[in-house]
């Protein structure tokens, strides 16, 4: 470029020595400059190529919710599917033909799925006909009317791990974008793009002319290539030096790479908006951010809006400045029309369309801070932060957005009701919740606090609170394992314990009364404290601790007697782990949020398979499950059945910590386990107990979730026997005051009450034998 200078030689007749020397110096300087410039160019060239061919962007980790599986016979309501499709940004149309569209006609719908490259195989885009009836999804057929056994919808993107500059983007290939997108970009930003060599003298001249006529800076002469260079390689400050670098680099870039390659990079690089601290880069993410759909599904007016945004994403922000955005979009459309890229009809139809931008909430990022918090903690144990924020990892989780939204709604509603009911004494309530599938131990939902969008303190994981009576099933299970039966009589009488520090501890019942001799199952169902402490001391606090560890608590537990009344603090997630084992018939399973992690290309990096370990005999668990069902039928959680269907067979336990600072409920049905905590961050006293608070929220969640009933199949080693409620003696169906209880075979009481049940046989020997049974 600086060759011209070399030719500048003026040999005049007057050749004085100083002039010659000066000229020589100039020549040398020029040569030096030439060398420096050439070196600079080579350096620039190397830089350009390195960046363009290497890893161009730090790609954030993407975190996905579980994909919704669709199959005939599934219990899924049409409303749930509607919600899921809405979250995925499906467009409701009159005739579903293209991916991401749906047509609802009463209980039937036509749906074209998008397809998704799952780690265990790609799910192709499919045209489907679905039929709902009664309880759920009745039939799925493909376009040719054949039955389809199983379909996976694409998973909802729920968040990510972003690099420090908070740049976020979804990479797309040029062929992923609608053909109108490059067309519109070229038309509005750089109409000579396909003809210039990186810089456009024509464009610069035109810009200068326009600016001169306007008397101010209206238009820049930058080509798309120059814009890419600017964003890609240079700092954002507007200096002349930068401007000078830009041009040779643009030419070099153009020299090395095809127009399409450069355009593809541009599509992914360009800045198109701001979501809080997150910078939206590239058309792939911008399409999701503004329209909730992949860029390939966008129509002409939407493409025109995005192309128009390039000039000023903040100035033309369609959410904040819709009029400006609309005018800008229509200008882009007009340019396309004037340049004969679109016909008149197309143009007229497009400018008549509304902006079509979705409300920001629908972008599911940021909607699940508590769940993502857990996912990120697990990821950070295995991956380096820089890999998480730059390698484009994909994380597949078990989050069920439907369960999550119902959990949030249930807590919100219940807290509102509690505040209304208890007035001033129920202000500043906080809450948290964990929902799992008891069969697979997958974590379906986590609520970390009342403000479900708050990214801070995650109470479900980090708030350690005394669990109160939630500890009782572990004590009773220990007792059952040590030979007690559900009918064993317990003494609910005052108990005094001398503590090592000299204090005397004498726990009270909630109703401040003692209840005398009661059968074991009753004591758990009604959550009596004195009988529980006596039982716990008899079997040994150490054994109870051992049981808690077997059920899933990994933290160290101190063998204080107060542990028997739940003085031990645990997080809701830990409690869920314990109840998970109770729900899964004694098989302890680590709770899982992440199913698998893959690299950007879909290669599996780690997976978290189904894992379990039998820790307690299923027969014993069956007994404790019986007593935990009694909690719902006749015990402290009776409230639940005033709302829930009678066949649900829920099993659970209420918990209220000492001085009523924490309100807990932990319980499960056939396919849902939920732990709810309600309390205050300042740990002050609540005006309600576990049944009055947390149980209400649990019940409200289960009401909307409509889970499967719990079904406790009787293990072979268990028999059901009629016993007398009051004495725990053997009884009969025909005798008053009798009930059926499960016993480990051979442990049922031998001696029986007498209501004449054996007399009708008129065999004196039978009557006689009954004394010895």
């Amino acid at each position: 470029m600086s060759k011209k200078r070399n030719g500048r030689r003026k040999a005049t007749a007057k050749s004085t020595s100083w002039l010659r020397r000066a000229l020589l110096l100039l020549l040398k300087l020029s040569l030096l400059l030439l060398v420096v410039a050439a070196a600079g160019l080579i350096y620039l060239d190397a830089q350009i190529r390195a960046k363009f061919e290497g890893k161009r962007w730090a790609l954030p980790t993407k975190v996905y919710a579980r994909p919704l599986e669709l199959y005939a016979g599934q219990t899924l309501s049409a409303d749930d599917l509607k919600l899921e499709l809405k979250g995925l940004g499906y467009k409701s149309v009159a005739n579903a033909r293209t991916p991401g569209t749906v047509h609802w006609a009463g209980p039937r719908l036509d749906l074209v799925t998008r397809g998704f490259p799952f780690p265990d195989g790609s799910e192709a885009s499919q045209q489907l006909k679905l039929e709902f009836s009664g309880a759920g999804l009745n039939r799925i057929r493909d376009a040719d009317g054949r039955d389809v056994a199983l379909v996976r919808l694409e998973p909802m993107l729920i968040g990510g791990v972003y690099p420090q500059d908070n740049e976020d983007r979804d990479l797309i290939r040029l062929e992923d974008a609608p053909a109108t997108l490059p067309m519109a970009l070229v038309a509005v930003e750089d109409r000579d793009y396909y003809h210039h060599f990186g810089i456009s003298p024509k464009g610069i001249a035109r810009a200068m002319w326009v600016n001169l006529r306007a008397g101010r800076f209206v238009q820049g002469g930058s080509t798309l290539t120059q814009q890419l260079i600017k964003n890609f390689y240079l700092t954002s400050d507007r200096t002349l030096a930068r401007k000078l670098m830009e041009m040779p680099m643009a030419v070099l870039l153009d020299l090395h790479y095809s127009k399409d390659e450069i355009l593809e990079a541009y599509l992914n690089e360009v800045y198109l908006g701001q979501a809080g601290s997150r910078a939206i880069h590239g058309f792939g993410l911008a399409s999701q951010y503004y329209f909730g759909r992949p860029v390939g599904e966008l129509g002409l007016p939407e493409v025109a809006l995005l192309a128009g945004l390039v000039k000023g994403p903040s100035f033309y922000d369609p959410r904040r400045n819709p009029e400006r955005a609309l005018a800008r979009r229509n200008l882009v459309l007009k340019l396309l029309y004037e340049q004969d890229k679109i016909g008149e009809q197309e143009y007229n139809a497009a400018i008549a369309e509304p902006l079509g931008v979705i409300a920001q909430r629908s972008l599911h990022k940021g909607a699940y801070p508590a769940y993502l918090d857990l996912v990120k903690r697990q990821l950070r144990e295995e991956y380096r932060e820089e890999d998480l924020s730059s390698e484009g990892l994909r994380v597949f989780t078990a989050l069920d957005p439907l369960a999550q939204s119902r959990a949030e709604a249930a807590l919100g509603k219940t807290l509102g009701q509690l505040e209304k009911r208890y007035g001033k004494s129920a202000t500043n309530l906080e809450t948290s919740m964990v929902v799992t599938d008891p069969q697979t131990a997958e974590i379906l939902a986590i609520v970390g606090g009342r403000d479900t969008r708050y990214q801070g303190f995650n109470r479900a994981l980090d708030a350690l609170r005394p669990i109160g009576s939630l500890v009782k099933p572990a004590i009773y299970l220990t007792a059952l394992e040590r030979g007690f039966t559900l009918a064993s009589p317990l003494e609910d009488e005052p108990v005094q314990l001398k503590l090592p520090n000299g204090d005397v501890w004498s726990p009270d019942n909630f109703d401040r009364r003692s209840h005398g001799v009661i059968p074991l199952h009753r004591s758990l169902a009604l959550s009596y404290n004195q009988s529980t402490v006596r039982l716990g001391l008899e079997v040994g606090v150490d054994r109870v601790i051992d049981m808690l560890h077997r059920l899933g608590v990994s933290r160290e537990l101190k063998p204080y007697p107060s542990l028997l009344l739940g003085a031990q603090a645990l997080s809701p997630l830990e409690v869920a782990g314990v109840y998970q084992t109770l729900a899964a018939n004694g098989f302890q399973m680590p709770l899982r949020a992440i199913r698998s992690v893959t690299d950007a290309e879909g290669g599996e990096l780690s997976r978290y398979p189904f894992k379990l370990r039998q820790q307690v005999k299923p027969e014993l668990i069956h007994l404790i499950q019986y007593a935990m069902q009694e909690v719902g039928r006749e015990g402290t959680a009776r409230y639940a059945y005033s709302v829930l269907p009678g066949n649900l067979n829920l099993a659970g336990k209420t918990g209220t910590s000492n001085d009523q600072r924490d309100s807990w409920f932990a319980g499960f049905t056939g396919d849902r386990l939920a732990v709810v905590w309600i309390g205050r961050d300042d740990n002050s006293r609540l005006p309600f107990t576990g049944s009055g608070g947390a149980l209400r929220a649990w019940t409200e969640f289960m009401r909307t979730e409509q889970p499967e009933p719990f079904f406790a199949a009787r293990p072979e080693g268990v028999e059901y026997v009629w016993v007398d409620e009051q004495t725990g003696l053997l009884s009969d169906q025909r005798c008053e005051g009798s009930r059926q209880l499960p016993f480990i075979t051979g442990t049922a009481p031998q001696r029986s009450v007498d209501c004449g049940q054996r007399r009708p046989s008129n065999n004196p020997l039978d009557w006689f034998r009954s004394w010895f049974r």
Partner: protein
Amino acid sequence: MKRVCIALGTAAVLAGCAGPSPYVTPVEDRSSVRSSAPPAPGSVLPVEENAPGVSVQPVEDVPVFRQQRTQEQGASTYTPPSAVESPLQPASTASQNAAVVALLDSARQDTSSGDLRAAQNRLERALRIAPRDPQVYYQLADVQRRLGQFMQAEQVALKGVNVAGGQPVQLRRLWSLVALIRSEAGDSAGARQAQQEAGRY
């Protein structure tokens, strides 16, 4: 002590009179409190508050009488906590689901073509859809066995046993699989035990 002996003797004689009776020694199972170690016959027990002066477990308790239930009382609408009486359960319906059948079939194909990871993925999908289907556990345990994950394989098979209550065919297959897993893992005693279990069905 004397009283106990007399009572014991009386009971034994009476029992003898009653013919070939199935009951065992009367005293041992007298205690209505089942503690970890039942008291030996005639052993000294703590004094009950309203059992003045009697410091031994009486052989003959005072009989407890109850009224018989009337019809109306019997026909109450109350549902007892665990309504499930029989180990026979309609779990087999789960496997009839076409989605699970399809997943199990492709998992079988994956397994025979040696793609155990793919099989595992499919079986875990099946598990989420039909977590009470013993067949899913059977195949998953078998895949884990082939992967050499014996401990997990055994546990998954045992969970299969747990959900297969009342289905003899499945129970036999699952216990046989447990036996195979244990013998491959070098636990021959455990394998024999599992084989015995399998033989019960």
